[in-house]
């Protein structure tokens, strides 16, 4: 349900950058979203199509890049990709530790770039 305010925020960012770069048309927008965040791909495109009508970004396609969850083991300092939605215990592939990790990334939520004319 929070896709609507999020989509408005994406559109505002896109239009702002389009104006400062003298863009005629925005063709596509790449979002980078961490695996920890929920964002419904299909719905966000629908909301975007609705909100972007009559703007410079009308008909632009949203591409979503998912950023993996990366953790660092505080025991051996090794960084690794964690499958946090699986039932299997998270373990450091280097030293085998199953606790004491620091979350390095996985919460990305930004507009990465856009293809324009």
């Amino acid at each position, binding site marked *: 349900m929070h896709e609507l*305010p999020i989509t408005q925020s994406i559109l505002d960012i896109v239009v702002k950058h389009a104006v400062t770069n003298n863009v005629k048309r925005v*063709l596509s927008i790449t979002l980078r979203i961490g695996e920890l965040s929920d964002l419904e791909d299909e719905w966000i495109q629908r909301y975007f199509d609705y909100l972007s009508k009559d703007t410079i970004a009308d008909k632009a396609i949203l591409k979503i890049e998912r950023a993996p969850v990366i953790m660092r083991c505080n025991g051996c300092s090794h960084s690794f990709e964690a499958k946090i939605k699986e039932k299997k*215990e998270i373990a450091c592939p280097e030293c085998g530790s199953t606790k004491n990790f620091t*979350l390095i990334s996985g919460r990305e939520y930004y507009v990465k*770039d856009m293809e*324009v004319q």
Partner: protein
Amino acid sequence: MDKVRLIEVKEDILSDNENMASEVRERMRKKKAYLLNLMSSPGAGKTSLILRTLEKIKHDIRVGVIEADIDSTVDAEKVMEESGTTAIQLRTGGFCHLDAAMVTQGLDALDLDSLDLVIIENVGNLVCPAEFDTGATKNAMILSVPEGDDKPLKYPLMFSICHVLLVNKIDYLASEDFDLGALKQRVRALNPDIRIIEVSCKTGEGINTWVDWLRNEVETSFSG
């Protein structure tokens, strides 16, 4: 035909909310009033926990409550009737979470000069509220035993942003297939610094431990 080119943007989608959340935090710091954001799924026991907490602290800590619901005022009425504490009801009008702008409205309706603590009862939901910083001093969440020990696998973000997790309804532990050890391990893998407190709002078990944590937070956060 104009050439297609790529523009680097790299701009955070939630930055407006994050800026506003920082303003809320600054405002509370100046007023020396602690802001607690309480989250959980519907029915986990947010209102019951608030009532239990008020019972213990209302005589020496001045508390205000901000209640958020999609469209009802029952929680604020219940809190005011049962505890005599000022409660503001925010209707989110269909929105599934509170953002910093809505919290600001709630704070505007309270007299912060005469409060030490404001508790936000966020909308019952484990997804969206995790995404939106409210400007709270700290985040607390409740997971109740009947919901199951697998929730950190399904809603990892919520468990990773909270400073304290209350496992409520522990009076149900005997009758549920709930593995408290597995839950703790899953939560700590995501968030090693989280404080986990087991409580039962029904029997009162563990409530003192929680209240001690909260009291210490309120007393020490803005001193010195």
